[in-house]
């Protein structure tokens, strides 16, 4: 992108500091060492006392989440224009077109196209994404362990792409340069058996890797155990982020792409109902991401590969491509927050609410 970043500095102030020269040498460093360094300034002392008492000159900022005051974005994302809705994506599991092969094995067939698409990642902020089937994250592919997966992948963009699945499969089906990389306008069929059961993901593995991933070519890949799991309200949250100005740092963090989507419109659930959330971290540029539930604890199934929980906790951190299955219930109605526990990510979009109803 073509932003010329830094704005005009305040020349008056800089000039002033320079003018102070010997007299005010400490002022330049004041910002770095905090308010204590400003002690010499007598007219500040009354304000500084206020600061010490915790009073701030502003009115209370965190007045709620109506989007008109305090933390958050201003305006609404046009989900219809995007062609996908973060709320619908939570429970949008794609089992493909099923049939049975001669051995009786279930075959799930998918058609996936990679193409560039401009998506609105925060109200009014558009990102030149690369998307599988027009959505970021791509479709949630769901199968049962042992099912045969056949994905006809078409590359509708100007760059080579792949679909690299996290799972157990032959080398030829790995979806990397040299094995299943698809050039513009061409197609390839990924054909493998879904193993092992768990919460997995897929993503493009063409080079440069960081760019192909953070542009939006990823999705969840859920493999159920052969015997199934207890009934629950199941959801998928792909923790992602967007470097909208392409400087190697993210401006937007979210679960399922749109900043504050679940803050502006909470996820509703019934009191006492078992909730099962497949949480996948695909955040680029930051080493970890996390999820934290308020006023509750969850059973953690690491990578979803066990039928028994590994841990009972309320916060779990994940590196890129780490993913877990969490289960919980809310026993009282009310509004409960959930978010990354990197505060910076929270305030840059990755936070939401569960609205627990009777």
């Amino acid at each position, binding site marked *: *992108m*073509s*932003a*010329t*970043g830094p*704005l*005009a*500095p*305040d*020349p*008056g*102030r*800089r*000039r*002033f*500091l320079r*003018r*102070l*020269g*010997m*007299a*005010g040498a400490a*002022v330049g460093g*004041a*910002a770095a060492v905090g*308010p204590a360094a*400003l002690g*010499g300034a007598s*007219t*500040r002392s009354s*304000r500084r006392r206020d*600061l010490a008492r915790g009073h*701030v*000159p*502003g*009115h*209370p*900022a965190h007045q709620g989440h109506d*989007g*008109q*005051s*305090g*933390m*958050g*974005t*201003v*305006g609404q994302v046009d989900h219809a224009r995007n062609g996908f809705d973060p709320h619908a994506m939570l429970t949008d599991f794609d089992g493909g077109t099923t049939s049975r092969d001669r051995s009786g094995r279930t075959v799930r067939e998918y058609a996936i196209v990679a193409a560039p698409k401009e998506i609105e990642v*925060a*109200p*009014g*902020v*558009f*990102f030149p994404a690369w998307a599988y089937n027009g959505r970021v994250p791509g479709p949630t592919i769901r199968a049962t362990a042992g099912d045969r997966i056949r994905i006809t992948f078409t590359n509708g963009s100007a760059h080579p792409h792949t679909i690299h699945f996290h799972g157990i499969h032959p080398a030829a089906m790995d979806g990397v340069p040299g094995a299943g990389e698809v050039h513009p306008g061409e197609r390839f069929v990924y054909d493998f058996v879904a193993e092992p059961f768990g919460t997995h993901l897929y993503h493009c593995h063409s080079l440069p890797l960081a760019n192909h991933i953070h542009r939006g070519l990823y999705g969840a890949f859920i493999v159920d155990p052969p015997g199934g799991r207890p009934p629950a309200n199941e959801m998928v949250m792909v923790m992602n982020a967007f470097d*909208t*100005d*392409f*400087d190697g740092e993210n*401006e937007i963090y979210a679960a399922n792409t749109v900043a504050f989507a679940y803050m502006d419109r909470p996820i509703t659930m019934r009191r006492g109902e078992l909730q099962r959330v497949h949480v996948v971290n695909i955040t680029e540029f930051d080493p970890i991401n996390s999820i934290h539930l308020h006023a509750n604890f969850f059973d953690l199934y690491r990578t979803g590969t066990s039928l028994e929980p590994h841990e009972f906790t309320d916060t779990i951190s994940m590196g890129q491509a780490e993913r877990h299955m969490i289960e919980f219930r809310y026993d009282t109605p009310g509004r409960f927050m959930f978010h990354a526990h990197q505060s910076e990510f929270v*305030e*840059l979009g990755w936070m939401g609410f569960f609205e627990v109803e009777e």
Partner: protein
Amino acid sequence: MTAGARSTAVTPAPGGAGRAAARAAVPVAGLLALVVLLVAFDPIGAITDAPPVEELAVERTVLTDGEIELRVRNDGPDPVTVAQVIVNDAYWAHTVSDRTLTRLDTATVRVPYPWEEGLPLHIRMVSSTGATFDHEIDVATGTPERDGRSLGVYALLGLAIGVVPVALGLLWLPSLRRVSARWIAVALAFTVGLLAFLLVDTVDEGLELAGATGEALGGLELFAVGALVVIVVLLAVESATLRRSASGAAGEVRASGLSLAYLVAVGIGLHNLGEGLAVGAASARGAVALGTALVVGFAVHNLTEGLAIAAPLSEHGPGGGVSAGHLAGLVAVAGLPTVPGAWLGAYAFSPAWAALAFGVAAGAIAQVLWVVGRHLLATPDGRSGAAAAGFVVALVVMYVTGLAVV
């Protein structure tokens, strides 16, 4: 008359003028046609398909209780839409008077935010394309309100660093009048040295401000235009005055001491306008508590400016009277601009206007330097070693007293 007849019915005499006018209009018409073709077919766009170049400059920051207000200008070629605002790494509710800014448009961004006195603020605006524009406030402090009290304080500040020292410096005039012509040349040389120092100082500040000005407004061009226009205007004024005062005296065209003193006062006054601007802007940004040391430094520094104005007047000799009214006028011209300078700096600072103001000051000083220098060299002792020493002493004194503030 038919239409065909009218088109050819051109009488020779006015027709000549008409043809000349028509011929003169050809380049303009040609240019218009070129513009229309370029806009209509956009051949450049067809080969480059360049993404938009978005730029946004923050021209003014106002911090009030619980609110950050930024005045922003699109100083790039393409439209910019301000979509979101991030304050210290958090998206924050805000209003923008006009989210989509075309080239050179301005808008006001208001963010209700519990900023803290004395701590830095990092404000980032995100455009519709995801481009980001950062604005750093090193030390947050409330912007002074435009009430009577703060107006008074800034006026006092201006008086203390501009008017009072100049007036005090002028008090050297009686002593100067009793000294020999040789010493008067030294004093004039001192004036020339001071002006040379102020010129360097003003150019330095002006160029720094020009660098801080957004590209589209062309800070350097504003600075240069300010300087050149003032030089030309002052040259015209000077030659008109000198022609009148010389009243036909052949060859020897010399300014009177009083008109020279006024020229020096104008140069110094415009410099002090810029100085007031810098001090006002700086103290409004939160270092006013340190201002007392600063004001003392400026006062000492500017005392020499009074001496510089007194030097040309001393040529009138002990008897040659300069009325009290003229003395007051000289002080006002040289010192008073500091007051509006301080107000402008405190309440309406913008790097572009400041660059222009410093350009004007630099041009004025350069021109006055030229006039006074020429005058000095025309005096019998103007090229003496003593005069050279006076010039050097001025530079040294300005440098040393400037250490406290510059």
